[in-house]
Structures are given as C-alpha cells and as structure tokens.
C-alpha cells in the first residue's frame, strides 16, 4: 500500500472483487464497483480536484452529495462531452475519463491563480458597475479577458449521439428521498395499500444510513426494509433518480441516470426524464450540512464532517490521518469518533462551551482531544491543508492537520417543497428553515422537517406514509415500524456567524463569493437577500447555493443586525439539480422536433424533383427542380407557364370546414364581414373574417353546397384558429344557432389547375362533365364522384387565371393528381410550387399572410367596399373606432421597381426620395416577386399619407444588406384589373 492510498483494508459498501479502471486528467487510477468518482479519487490520494470559478484557487472535495460546489468535472468527448458534473454524484464506471475544469495549463500549475491581477475586477457588483456606470466602454476591453478567466466547464458543440427519453408515470404516493424517513414512509404507504414510487438520487437506498458502519444495526435495518419494499408489487424503487422540480398538480420532474457505465453504443437511453403525477407526495429529502466560514476555508482537505464519515464508512476511505473536526453541533462528533476508531488522530474544536456529557465520555474513551469554545481562525496549505490556527478560551494556538472536517449546522433540504410557493419558516431551536404549511396532498418527514435523530425520522416517516396513503383513500392497517435507534444526541446548535478577519473567507465556494463581497453589497445598499444574491452571484452556481445559502444570509443578518427570519431566504426554483437540455427534449430533436404534416400527394412531389419547404407543420412543394436551376429561376418559369398554358398546384393544406344546420347561413352572415345569407346554392364567395377588435383575422372562400350546408376554406396557417373560433362562438355566444362545424381538412386532397388551358384540361380529365362557362362559371361549383370517391370542383382563382379547385377523397389524391397530369400532358400541364403561387397572387394583388398580419383593417387592405352598409358581424363595432378609420393609416399599394437590374426586398422600409432613411419611415414592403408581366420586380406594400397615391416615388431601404432602390407607387393589381382572364 503506497502512501497515497487511503483505502482501508476492509469495510465499506464497495465490491472489492470488482476493480474499476478510470482516469482523471489522463492519469490512470483504480477504484471499485460501489465507488463514486469522488470516493475513488480520495482513495487514490487525490485532494486537488478543481480550480475555483473566479480566482482559480485550488479546490478539493467538500461533500458527498449533490450539494458539491468544488469537485465538478467534465466527462466524455465530442458530442458526449458533459461539463460541471459533481464527482460526488458520479457512480464510478469502467473506463470513465474525467477531466478537471477551469485550469490552464494544468490543475496543479494554474497561471491564473496569481489572481491578484484579476481580483479588483472580480469583486461583487463588478459586472453591474461596468455595464451601468461611466466605465461602460471599458467592458469591451476586458470582456474577452474575463470570459476566459472566469468560468466552469465547456459544453460540447457537436450533436449528442446518445438517446434520451421523456415519459409520464403515475402513483398514489411519491416519496422523495430514501433515507430513514423515506424508507419508513414507503413501507407504511405500501402496507396501507397505496401504489408507491420511492425516488432516490443515489445508486443505493439508505441516505444518511449509508454513513453508518456497513455491518452495524443501521445496515441490518436497511437490508430488512429494502427486502420488505422489494416484496411489494405496488412499490417502484427509482434509484439514480433526482427529483428536479415539483409542478402544479403534484407533478414531479425526475431525471434518471442510466447506463453511465455502459459502452456508449448500447442504443439505450442514457438519461430518462419522468413526469410523475402523484396523488400525494412525501418529502423526505433530508438535510444538507453547512460549511463554516473562516479565512482559507476553501483549501483542499476541508470537508463537511458528514461527508468524511460517508467516505470512511461507506467507501472505506480514510480521508485524513491528522484531523481537526470543527463544529457547532453534536452531529460532527460522530465523525470524530469514527475517524479516531479508524486510526486517525482527531482534535475536536467545538464553538460551544458545554457539551453533552455522553459525547465527552466517548471522546475520552477514543482519545479524541476536545477543545470547547474554540474556533478556527485561519488555515494554511497549498494543494492540501497543512496547518490550522485556532482560538480557544486560552488564546491562539496552532495545529498540524491534513483534514479539516467542518459542520456549521444543518439546513433541511426544503428546496423541492418550496417550488410550489410554500414559504420556508425559520426554527430557532434547530437553527434552520423548515417548510411552511403544506397543501393537503403534501407531507414532510424526517430531517427535512428538522428531525435529525434517526429514531425520530424513522417514526416520522411512518406517520407521513400512513397519512399520504390515507389521502389517496388507502387505509389498510399498517404493522408497527421496526425501530432503529442510533442513539444520537441532538441539542440546539451554536449559531455560527461567518468570521471574516484575515484572508479570503468563502461563503459560496462555487461562485467564489467571500465575506468581503457580502460586506460590499451591504455597504452599497444591497441588503435584501434577493438583491444580495443578484449583486454577488451568491447561490447562482450550478449547485444553486445548497451549501452557501444559509451562511450567506447569516452573514447579511449579522451585518444588518437583524434576525434570520427578518433577513429571509431566497426563492427556491426548479431545477434542484442541473438537468441536461437534451434529456428534457427526449426524442423531440432534429426531424422529430415537431410533427410533419404531409399531403396525399407528398410522395409524388418527392419522386418528381420537388424541393420541399416547411410551412408551419406542413411540407409543401417549394418549386420543382425541372423548372430551373434555383428557386429564383424556377418560380419565374413556373409563373410564366401558368400564365401561358396551365399549372397544377397541391392545395391540400388549406383549412376545410364543413358548416351544417338550419341556421348555417345566419351564422356565416355573422362571422364574415361580407354577407353570405343570399349566396345561391352551388355558388362560392370570397369572404373575410374580422376579430372582435375589428382587425382582419382570415380570408377564404365558402361554397353553398345546399340550403343548409356550406363548405368553408381557410388559409393554411389559420385553419386551426378559425375552426376553434367558430366553435367558441357557437358554444359560448350563440348557442341558440342550430349549426355544427367540423374540420374536414384531412378528408380531402385538393389541387388547383390554373391557366388559359385549365378548362380544356378539365374536360379531358372528366369527359362526362360539362365544363362550359355556362355550366361551371367563375365562382360555380360541381359535386359528383370520381372512381367511387367524392369529387368536388370549385371554379375559383387565386392566381388571376381561369382556375379550378378540385377536391377528392384524400386516399385518391395522388391518383387524381397523376390522372390530371396525364390528361393535361398534351396541353402542357405542369406542376408548380408555392413560390410561384405566392408570386402569382402578388401580381394579381391578392392579400395573404404578410398583409393580413394582425394589424390591418379591411380598409387598410382595400377590402372595405366588400362590407357596404352591413352590420351585426363579428368585429363590426370596434372596426369603426376613430384610430382604425384615420385617413393617415398605412394602406395597401403596389410598388414597381424603377431601377433596372435591382430587386425589391420584402421587409424594406419606405421613405420619401431625399429623406434621411432613419426610423420606421412611411411604410414597408410586405410581399415581392419578379413579374414576368411587367418584366421587373414588383411588390405589395403598406404605405401611409400622401405617398400612397399612385404615381408617387418612394425609396425602399433594406438595411440588412445596405440596399436602397427607387420604386413607384402603382395599383396593387398588376394584372388584368377587369378579371377577364378568370371569367371567360
């Protein structure tokens, strides 16, 4: 056994038959199954594990749990690289390769630890003052420097190849924490008949019981209860699982570590997020020990007393041979006794003057030196603590040491219990915060309620388990709990006030916040605990201040001369422990980020060279590669073809709503701004809907199929909103109307033939159909069958050409599409995409999404004349508000580019010629296209004032590309203003 090996020859809950190879900063080391990375490092004599956030001070392992502020490591490489993992929570796995963080060039030799250079920049409030004050500009100089110097680990930038899952689960009783209280609660709730989920962040059950000797009474009690729990079919044990948040309705967010030690390509999820909905919750989250605050209290070799005991008894690691145990309470004495029994030379330095006699007797028996009314003034050492200066009743003295165990008391782990707004309340007798009044479906038990003795926690858990089960209506008789008494003494602890004389005394180890920072915050008026937090970054690290919260507020309370309750505590928010974004996303990444909606002709588009575009959830053909080399070339070619021959467009994405009932016409008359009651059966009409506030909501066409049956189409984007709105009005406003609406969007495949040859193609495709202008005029309709499927043809035009919308049962969509192309082949029917569709409608001056943008009125869009003198429709009254009728509002105009070879761009801001191009200008370009008709770029714009008269000249400025182009205001209808093309 070499000198650095601190593993004891026997004991502990490690499997000595299973040795594990791992590395730390490239150096090969060995541990055992059952180790954490932290315990294995300690066993190998590694005391220096990281550099601090701002000052690059050497840091060691402080704790043995999720509160660890110092021992943060990075695991993995490439896409699997994961930073800021507490070594105390990592179950040692074969081949684990851990790296320390925030050091350069190496952990042992860090050039930035000469931190005197940086210190003046890094005090509390530095960022505030730099950003807000007169020195604002200097930030530019220092930023790069400081960002490199201060920090934690770096995340990977490559995509993570591993799988993550999100699932939902349900329980009667969820119990968070499997220590003495949680185990008892689980046993009692299960015996009462409840379905129980027991959640434990560790890979072993037991909580603080694991700090007891692995062959004592605690261990046998633990073994017995564990076996009992496993015998219940209704109990689910979730180990390696942290509860990170409690949400409304008793939903608990759980993150489970899986396969940490498996080879990376096993294909199984690495982490699983479970949203567990429980009818009642028992918080048995225990307590976290507080460090003590004195100069150089952050040296490696300073460890929480409870953690030292865990390393000794659970992992068979003796972390030091010459130990000072500094404490304010009884608990740490047990650490001193166990260390002494394991062969260490131990001195206890207790702040209190009187000690329970039982402890003093035991100390004498084990040869532990006891110093009462004593505290540590300072520590010295390099990469590990070497000497301590203490002060007792007889004055100062020095002591050599290689381990300093500290206990500044215990903070009940109230974080989770506070997430839903239950305010913690301070208890003077235990010197800590406990949860306030719980709602009826939540219970607390054990140390988190301030019961630190195992026997009390055990009994309290039993009670909470019965109550939680009873809340769910499960009240079967429960056998009495098996007693477990470890004979701890519990007396009111001494309240330690941070000591700040001398060197840096750290309150928050992870964020490098010292007592001086708190003094500065106090001096500058940031006295409120919430201000203190933000000014100094106290508690804002990845550990969420689990060890620093209480010492911080205690220091502020002392400075203010206030009590702890007066000073208060910060608000606890999820997550309790860091959760990787990838785990929350689960499988919803990349292609699976959102669902895709495909039209019935989707496969045809792909097989025929369509470039697809995401439009909301839909995938639509953007353009066809056969039409041109790129989108700009293709859409112009497709446009030309539609105007000259004919094009076929997939319009299945339109919202389609079936409106039926005796009052259907009355209903449509109210929801559309223009009238529908007089629409003849078999005819279609363009309609515009307003919102209640008078702004345009959506447009589309509605066809009267029968006296009391209509077929409505909506824009693709607004389909869901329109349907929901119609249902809202029928359910809440006008329940007396006998109307039913239902979505038939997915029932129909829809396609549109547009162009001069459209009618001839229709005739060829449907030889038995009379397609003459008399039988099927503009705005006319036909209903029939095609190969046994429902067929609906509406003569409607969006492009400005003679056009027919053809609807067929969705499963026959691709068949009809191919059939039309075949029939239309001799007449040059070709498919076109939405880029060309958008361009065609701009040429025709039809408004769409960019113009109907939630800010425009009917008059703004030039649609006011549709309404006439009607009233009583949705939005009618508020559309008459003076501001919406003002004559200086921006209204729809057409723009024509005046400069050859230049283009208009959507989003350009419009100014007067010669005017300085700043601010919002007089309007903006909403839609643009190249117009084959005009042989130049044209656009639609919303433009205010006298500029909006035809013939005016404007300057369109596009600051993103520093482009300026002159344009002329023209009518928004660039093509066929009389509508001769679409009617004949």
């Amino acid at each position, binding site marked *: 056994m070499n000198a650095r090996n601190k593993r004891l020859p026997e004991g502990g809950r490690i499997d000595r038959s299973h040795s594990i190879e791992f590395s730390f900063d490239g150096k090969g080391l060995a541990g055992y199954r059952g180790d954490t990375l932290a315990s294995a490092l300690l066993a190998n004599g590694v005391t220096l594990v990281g550099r601090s956030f701002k000052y690059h001070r050497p840091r060691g392992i402080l704790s043995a749990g999720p509160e660890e502020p110092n021992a943060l490591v990075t695991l993995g490489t490439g896409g699997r690289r994961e930073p800021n993992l507490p070594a105390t929570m990592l179950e040692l796995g074969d081949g684990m390769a851990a790296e320390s963080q925030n050091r350069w060039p190496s952990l042992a030799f860090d050039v930035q630890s000469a931190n005197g250079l940086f210190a003046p920049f890094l005090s509390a409030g530095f960022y505030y003052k730099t950003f807000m004050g007169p020195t604002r500009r200097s930030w530019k100089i220092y930023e790069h420097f400081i960002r490199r110097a201060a920090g934690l680990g770096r995340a990977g930038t490559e995509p993570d190849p591993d799988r993550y899952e999100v699932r939902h689960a349900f329980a009667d009783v969820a119990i968070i924490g499997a220590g003495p209280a949680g185990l008892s609660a689980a046993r009692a709730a299960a015996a009462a008949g409840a379905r129980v989920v027991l959640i434990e962040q560790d890979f072993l059950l037991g909580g603080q019981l694991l700090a007891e000797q692995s062959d004592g009474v605690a261990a046998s009690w633990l073994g017995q209860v564990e076996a009992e729990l496993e015998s219940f079919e209704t109990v689910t044990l979730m180990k390696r699982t942290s509860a990170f948040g409690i949400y409304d309705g008793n939903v608990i967010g759980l993150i489970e570590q899986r396969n940490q030690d498996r080879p990376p390509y096993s294909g199984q999820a690495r982490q699983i997020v479970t949203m567990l909905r429980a009818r009642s919750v028992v918080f048995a989250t225990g307590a976290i020990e507080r460090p003590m605050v004195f100069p150089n209290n952050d040296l490696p070799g300073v460890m929480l007393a409870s953690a030292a005991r865990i390393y000794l008894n659970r992992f068979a690691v003796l972390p030091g041979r010459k130990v000072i145990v500094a404490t304010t309470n009884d608990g740490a004495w047990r650490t001193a006794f166990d260390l002494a029994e394991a062969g260490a030379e131990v001195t206890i330095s207790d702040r209190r003057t009187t000690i329970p006699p039982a402890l003093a007797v035991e100390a004498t028996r084990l040869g532990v030196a006891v110093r009462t009314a004593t505290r540590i003034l300072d520590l010295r050492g390099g990469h590990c603590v070497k000497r301590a200066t203490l002060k007792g009743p007889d004055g100062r003295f020095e002591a050599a040491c290689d381990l300093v165990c500290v206990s500044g008391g215990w903070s009940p782990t109230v974080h989770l219990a506070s997430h839903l707004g239950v305010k913690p309340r301070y208890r003077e007798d235990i010197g800590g915060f406990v949860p306030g009044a719980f709602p009826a479906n939540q219970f607390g038990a054990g140390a988190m309620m301030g019961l630190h003795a195992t026997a009390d926690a055990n009994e309290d858990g039993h009670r909470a388990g019965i109550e939680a089960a009873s809340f769910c209506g499960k009240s079967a008789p429960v056998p009495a709990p098996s007693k477990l008494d470890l004979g701890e003494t519990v007396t009111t602890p001494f309240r330690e006030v941070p000591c700040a004389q001398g060197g840096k005394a750290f309150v928050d180890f992870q964020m490098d916040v010292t007592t001086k920072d708190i003094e500065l915050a106090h001096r500058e008026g940031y006295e409120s605990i919430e201000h203190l937090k933000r000014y100094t970054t106290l508690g804002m690290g990845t550990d969420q201040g689990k060890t620093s919260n209480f010492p911080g507020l205690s220091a502020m309370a002392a400075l203010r001369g206030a009590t702890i309750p007066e000073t208060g505590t910060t608000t606890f928010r999820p997550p309790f422990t860091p959760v990787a974004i990838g785990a929350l996303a689960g499988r919803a990444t990349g292609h699976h980020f959102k669902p895709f909606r495909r039209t019935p002709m989707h496969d045809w588009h792909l097989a025929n060279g369509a470039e697809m575009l995401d439009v909301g959830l839909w995938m639509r053909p953007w353009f066809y590669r056969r039409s041109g080399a790129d989108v700009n070339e293709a859409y112009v070619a497709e446009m030309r073809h539609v105007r000259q021959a004919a094009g076929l467009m997939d319009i299945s994405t339109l919202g389609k709503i079936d409106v039926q009932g005796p009052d259907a016409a009355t209903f449509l008359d109210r929801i559309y701004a223009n009238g529908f009651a007089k629409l003849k059966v078999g005819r279609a009409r363009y309609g515009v809907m307003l919102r209640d506030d008078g702004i345009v909501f959506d447009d589309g066409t509605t066809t009267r199929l029968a006296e009391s049956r209509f077929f409505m189409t909506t824009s693709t984007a607004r389909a869901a909103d329109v349907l*929901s709105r119609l249902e809202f009005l029928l359910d809440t406003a006008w329940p007396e109307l006998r109307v039913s609406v239902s979505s038939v969007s997915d029932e129909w495949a829809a396609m549109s033939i547009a162009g001069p040859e459209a009618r001839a193609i229709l005739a060829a495709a449907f030889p038995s159909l009379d397609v003459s202008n008399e039988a099927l005029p503009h705005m006319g309709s036909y209903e029939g069958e095609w190969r046994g499927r429902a067929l609906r043809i509406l003569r409607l035009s969006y492009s400005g050409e003679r056009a027919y919308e053809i609807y067929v049962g969705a499963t026959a969509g691709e068949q009809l599409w191919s059939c039309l192309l075949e029939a239309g082949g001799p007449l040059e029917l070709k498919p076109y995409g939405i880029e060309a569709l958008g361009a065609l409608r701009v040429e025709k001056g039809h408004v769409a999404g960019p113009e109907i943008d939630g800010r425009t009125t009917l008059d703004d869009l030039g649609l006011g004349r549709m309404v006439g003198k009607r009233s009583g429709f949705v939005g009618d*009254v508020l559309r008459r508000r003076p501001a919406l009728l003002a004559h200086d509002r921006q209204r729809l105009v057409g723009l024509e580019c005046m400069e050859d070879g230049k283009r208009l761009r959507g989003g350009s801001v419009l100014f007067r010629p010669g005017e300085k191009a700043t601010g919002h200008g007089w309007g903006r370009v909403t839609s643009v296209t190249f117009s084959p008709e005009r042989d130049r770029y044209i656009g639609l714009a919303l433009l205010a004032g006298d500029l909006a008269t035809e013939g005016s000249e404007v300057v369109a400025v596009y600051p993103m590309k520093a482009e300026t182009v002159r344009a002329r205001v023209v009518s928004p209808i660039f093509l066929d203003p009389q509508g001769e093309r679409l009617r004949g």
Partner: protein
Amino acid sequence: MLRFECPCCGPRDHDEFRYGGDASVRRPAHDDPDPEAWYAYVYIRKNPAGLHREFWQHVTGCRQWLVVERDTRNHVISSVAFARTSQA
C-alpha cells in the same frame, strides 16, 4: 401541469386544451351597436388573485368549449362545465 376533469372525456392533461380567456365577461349581442359594450368585452379584465372563471377548449379531445373555475393563486380547479350550458 394542470389537469381538467372534462365533463365529456374525464380527467385530461392541460396539453390537450386551448385557453380561451376570461369567461366572466359577457359578450354583447351580435348586433349590439354600443362601442362601450364591445370595448369592455374585448379589453376590460379583472385579473383577480383568487377564483377565476375562464374558457378552455378540449382541442385534442371532444372539442367542447368549457368554463373552468380556477384559483389563480394555487391553480386549484373547483369546477369544469360545458360552456353551452353554464352560460345562461
């Protein structure tokens, strides 16, 4: 993570619902010409700390609009009813 007891579909997660605003405001009759009435209906809200009547639609379920009574302080839902029948 609210959960509604839909009178048609039973207890369902709030992911299945769409919020529809304050249900305590009365919509004027469709042909009410009074701008003040419409202004109050569209814009004036109480924002109470306590019981709130609000509309929710079960969009991925029965598609019914519901009136839900929810305590804004703790999200406790005291009643859920069909909007059609609870309006009068």
